[in-house]
């Protein structure tokens, strides 16, 4: 697992209170991890904090899985 994927997973585990082994890159926030739309808003804010990236609303709407988040961050994280 890449460093980014690892850090994304940790944030998801912390915020959603789910078991770490359920958080794989294919996992859907809503269908697999029990999140609701507000949880995703909060997760996006946490990703922005952790990685110093800005995730605009239209991009955030397309992030539905852990892998989507990892991919967006890896593509936009210049640090």
């Amino acid at each position, binding site marked *: 697992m890449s460093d980014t994927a690892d850090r994304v997973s940790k944030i998801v585990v912390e*915020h*959603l*209170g789910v078991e770490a082994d359920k958080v794989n890159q294919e996992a859907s926030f809503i269908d697999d991890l*029990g999140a609701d739309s*507000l*949880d995703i*808003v*909060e997760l996006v*804010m946490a990703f922005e904090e952790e990685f110093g990236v800005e995730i605009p609303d239209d991009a955030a709407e397309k992030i539905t899985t852990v892998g989507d988040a990892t991919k967006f961050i890896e593509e936009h994280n210049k640090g």
Partner: protein
Amino acid sequence: MRRVVVTGLGLVTPLGGDVETSWANILASKNGAGPITHFDASDQKCTIACEVKPKDHEYGFDADKRVDHKVQRQVDPFIVYGIDAAGQALEDAGLEDMSDDLKIRTGCSIGAGIGGLPGIERESIVLKERGPGRVSPHFVHGRLINLISGQVSIKYGLMGPNHAVVTACSTGAHSIGDAARMIRDDDADIMLAGGAESTINPLGVAGFAQARALNMSMNDRPTEASRPYDKDRDGFVMGEGAGVVVLEEYEHARARGAKIYAEVVGYGLSGDAYHVTAPHPEGKGAELAMNMALRKAGMAAGDIDYVNAHGTSTMADTIELSAVKRVLGDDLSGASMSSTKSAIGHLLGGAGAVEAIFCILAIRDQIVPPTLNLQNPDEGTDNVDLVPLVAKKRTVNAVLNNSFGFGGTNASLVMKKVD
């Protein structure tokens, strides 16, 4: 008329994360006060409180038992305490698994006096320092007072009345009284009723200190600071926690063979119409509430065995005592009266419900809890049994519970043993 009984209890207090621990510590004259640990209070005028203890403490509270990790992160502590106390009460009543039909007939009336002040304070700083885009999406519904009732209804699928009282320090008593009426009026067969509070945060402590309501002279002696009816009392000590009871229609409780703790027989309400923080100097509002509760109960002064006083350890104690004397008689006509705020501090919106539970346990165990720190009883307390320092075994068949709040709002409950 439909009768209303208590069939389950739940407590989170500074002396325990459950009913039996809290009650055992109350009866053992333990004291929940100490220096504030929730935040650095060194610049506050008041640096002490009765905090709910962490789970590794001898009588601490473990939120993980009943409250999802995710919910804990999103909501203020008063909601966490309320959800846990409601869960305890349901388990105690044997109602964890209800039929869908019963869930429709089961509601919630769990309030708070202030609500999510710690979260409001924290997110206000986020707004100011980092802008509106960093405010939590869970900010609003994690702070609202009715979100104990909301969260509990979602967790257990309860589709009956969903209600939340906000009457400052009378909240817990009003919540139980209002919920009892809902059962009497056939809106529900079962109600989870009570109150919670957690405002031991910088803004909460500073606010009450500035209102000159808190004890600020005994920061070096926290366990001596809450001393209702004592000459040296000098303001209340803030507590936190929650109390929730299961109220149930009597025949319903009988039919399922439930354990019945007590019957709610009287409920009185009034307003002081006098001042925002000070009680009416003659205690007229308090007297009205107590008299109404007794009248509804069909009881006379001599029927009451125990009064759990509002008794906050402020100058208002004298006014309450004078009102109780006018209602029950100068010697209280055989009743004992104590203030458990001497042990757990003032739980504000949670106080009335927590103290109602102590009243119910007094009936169950035939013992009345003490008023701690009552070394030099104030004038006017002669001939009155204020249960100083240690608990007292005695007959307890009927109890009166008083709660009074800012704004001049008063509530009294009368409960009695069911034979």
